[in-house]
């Protein structure tokens, strides 16, 4: 890994040199008179520098991305036949041993001869690859620089060339958003398809039992995993519902109060303070829920004679609601403020009081926007992870009682993926199927919410 920075520094030096010589050549071909040139001399320098650096960087990136998997494949191909016949997980162990040997880490057990030989082969391949990379990258940089340099003429439109390249870079940067979406969809989709080959999709979506433990041996208890996700969906909905019962009334009422009643002074203090709630990391809420709110609810429950689980859905939902208050309030605030003043004036002119104006005129007018805001808040609550991981339970429990422990989609994703992962067992793959559901649901909620909000905005614009 140390060679990459060296290469980058070398490339930077090459590009600077290219810039310098490009400028110089531009002066020379113009006979020292800049007005003979199409562009400013700096653009000629930049043109050459970009030609030297960009293709080389591209080659470097591709090389580094592919190097690891290529070498591993070649090493695996060189291993003796019986080792290659091992299952993928055993083979992975062997590869790990080889990698550890190469990087000088501690290896599990005494390495045998084939492993040692493979490690040696790995090391030599790595050495060859590194040497080759140096030669290839530097020669690509040299060739590119020479090409750019040779194109310098007084009539050459260097500025247009540079601007085209910059434009291309800008376009490439803006497509990262699309690539990310594609990456998310593909990564979640592929693993989910593999999961659905092992577990039928109908069982996943409509099954009532969730116990993703796959036993290592056939005689272990609970050896057959059950992947019915309905308890998870129910748990997620329950916690979201509790969160919304807290967040929607409080958020909405505080938005109304702050935008219609509060003096500018109160608003200037209370609004940012409420928004602090949105800036606090979710892990802090999780800690608060698990250590302060949950014991409090359990103790008050036992005073009332109720049997409350120590990881009750109520605690997680309550704290999640707290977190979402500013989300609901600032979105509804925007919506309420965008209701035209003329509607208010009309209502006041008819003799309505402020609260009547708000309830009978402003609220109905703002309703679609508020619905949109609530939908966005719901999608936030469904995808929220840390609070439920720390404060909700792990046991799947199909119940509507907020005092019992339930588990959610995000909790299960975390529990399935933290720690050991096997990408050929349904247990690990199930997390991706849950991720797919999460992604689709939040996406759909957002689409609907944004559609409603936009439609409503147009009404008054």
């Amino acid at each position: 890994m140390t060679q990459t920075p060296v290469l980058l520094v070398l490339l930077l030096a090459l590009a600077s040199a290219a810039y310098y010589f490009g400028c110089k050549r531009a002066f020379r071909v113009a006979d020292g008179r800049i007005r003979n040139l199409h562009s400013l001399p700096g653009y000629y320098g930049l043109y050459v520098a970009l030609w030297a650096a960009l293709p080389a960087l591209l080659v470097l990136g591709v090389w580094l991305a592919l190097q690891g998997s290529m070498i591993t494949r070649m090493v695996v191909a060189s291993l003796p036949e019986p080792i290659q016949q091992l299952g993928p997980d055993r083979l992975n162990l062997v590869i790990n041993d080889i990698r550890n040997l190469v990087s000088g880490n501690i290896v599990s057990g005494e390495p045998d001869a084939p492993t040692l030989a493979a490690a040696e082969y790995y090391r030599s391949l790595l050495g060859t690859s590194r040497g080759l990379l140096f030669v290839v990258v530097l020669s690509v940089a040299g060739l590119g620089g020479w090409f750019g340099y040779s194109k310098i003429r007084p009539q050459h439109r260097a500025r247009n060339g540079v601007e085209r390249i910059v434009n291309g870079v800008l376009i490439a940067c803006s497509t990262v958003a699309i690539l990310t979406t594609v990456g998310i969809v593909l990564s979640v989709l592929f693993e989910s398809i593999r999961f659905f080959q092992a577990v039928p999709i109908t069982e996943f979506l409509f099954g009532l039992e969730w116990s993703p433990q796959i036993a290592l041996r056939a005689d272990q208890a609970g050896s057959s995993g059950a992947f019915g996700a309905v308890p998870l969906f129910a748990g997620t909905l329950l916690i979201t519902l509790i969160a919304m019962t807290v967040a929607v009334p409080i958020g909405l009422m505080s938005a109304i109060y702050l935008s219609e009643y509060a003096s500018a002074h109160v608003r200037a203090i209370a609004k940012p303070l409420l928004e602090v709630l949105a800036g606090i990391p979710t892990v802090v809420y999780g800690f608060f829920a698990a250590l302060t709110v949950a014991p409090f609810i359990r103790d008050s429950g036992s005073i009332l004679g109720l049997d409350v689980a120590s990881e009750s859905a109520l605690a997680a939902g309550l704290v999640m609601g707290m977190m979402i208050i500013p989300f609901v309030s600032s979105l509804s605030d925007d919506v309420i403020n965008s209701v035209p003043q003329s509607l208010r004036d009309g209502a006041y002119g008819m003799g309505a009081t402020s609260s009547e104006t708000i309830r009978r005129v402003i609220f109905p007018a703002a309703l679609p926007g508020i619905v949109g805001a609530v939908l966005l808040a719901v999608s936030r609550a469904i995808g929220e992870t840390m609070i439920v991981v720390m404060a909700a339970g792990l046991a799947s429990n199909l119940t509507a009682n907020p005092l019992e422990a339930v588990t959610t989609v995000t909790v299960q994703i975390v529990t399935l993926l933290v720690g050991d992962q096997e990408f050929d067992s349904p247990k690990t793959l199930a997390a991706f199927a849950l991720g797919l559901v999460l992604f689709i649901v939040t996406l759909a909620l957002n689409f609907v919410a944004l559609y409603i909000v936009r439609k409503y905005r147009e009404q008054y614009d």
Partner: protein
Amino acid sequence: MTNPTKASTEGASSFARVQAGMARRRAAERRFKLLGRAAVGIGLLFLAVLLTSIVSRGYTAFWQTEMRLDVVLVADEIDPEGTRLVDTLHKADYSALIKQSLRDMFPEVSSRRDRFALYGLVSNGAAFDLRDRVMADPSLIGTTVSLWVPADDDVDMLMKGHIDREGPEADRRIKDTTLGWIDQLEADGRLALRFNTAFFTKGDSRDPELAGIRGALMGTIFTLVVTLALSFPLGVAAAVYLEEFAPKNRWTDLIEVNINNLAAVPSIVFGLLGLAVFINVFGLPRSAPLLGGLVLTLMTLPTIIIASRAALKSVPPSIRDAALGIGASPMQATLFHVIPLALPGMLTGTIIGMAQALGETAPLLMIGMVAFIADVPQGVFDPATALPVQIYLWADSPERAFVERTSAAIMVLLAFLALMNLVAVLLRKRFERRW
């Protein structure tokens, strides 16, 4: 109109009717206003309860109970051959010396069980402190040194009043005999609460009294540096393209829809992406800040792009027109005139995005930044964890002393967040221009 008398009586009656309802309507108005005030009050109350509960649990973690020991550095124990070689000094059994000094203080303790309890008063880290002291100055060998070493976390909790002295002995983590020793040590001035430097200078540990946030903090810093280095240029470039150059077509619309949707995708899904693509396909090292930075970049990018576009939008068109009018190309107008004016707004958006990344935990869990890592990471390829993840890990630990440390780590995290937001606000105040 023909009968004025009738009209006036009708007017009087509707006036009376309105008057009759007025009290009820005013009461409704008051109730509604009160409701609004209560909502704001409840929201602020939540905030206050949250912050007080964290601070009241956590502020004690900045002090740590330490014990003064007089350790006789017996030359025969440490370095029998008198070579003073680094290796010999490193390997010597310092915990035996510490135990001896404890036995010297309480000579009456004889049974195995009691001795074991006695040794438990001092943290496991005491021997390492002593070793470092001796290695720094080998001439101490043969003398008696007096040094402060961290006490065990149970002693610490007792000193801070988190363990109830009065409860039945069987339920207490500290038994009556131990309690007697502690009282005696305290009376001798050998136990004291001192500033907890280890909390800021050490990595994670299984022993609460030795655990610090340095490792997590460095991991966070490396992760954020990677995030900043990638997301700022990418975000600004994307925003400039979309706002200044992009033609209005399907492709641009697609990009915009994508950005808006990515802003609302749950963060844990980005973790799944990191796991499936960056680890399984590209083979990047697990648990490394580089990987965390990549994932957080993708997560914060929409925030930065949206803020940067708003900043670009607020630059008036007259600036562009003036530049174009004197012969600048559109690219030159944007690069040299529009972007410098929009930069403060872009930076503010970036800082807010970074603050979001600083507090993010869920995606880091997916890519293996949750391992127990005692070493402080030295670079972006070393396995590391981050401050929020450290909070998550400590919150799961059963020891009472970790509750205090978790809260203290949260206080540090919140302080960083407050600082970043403050910088963003000041930046906005200082450079905000009204056109």
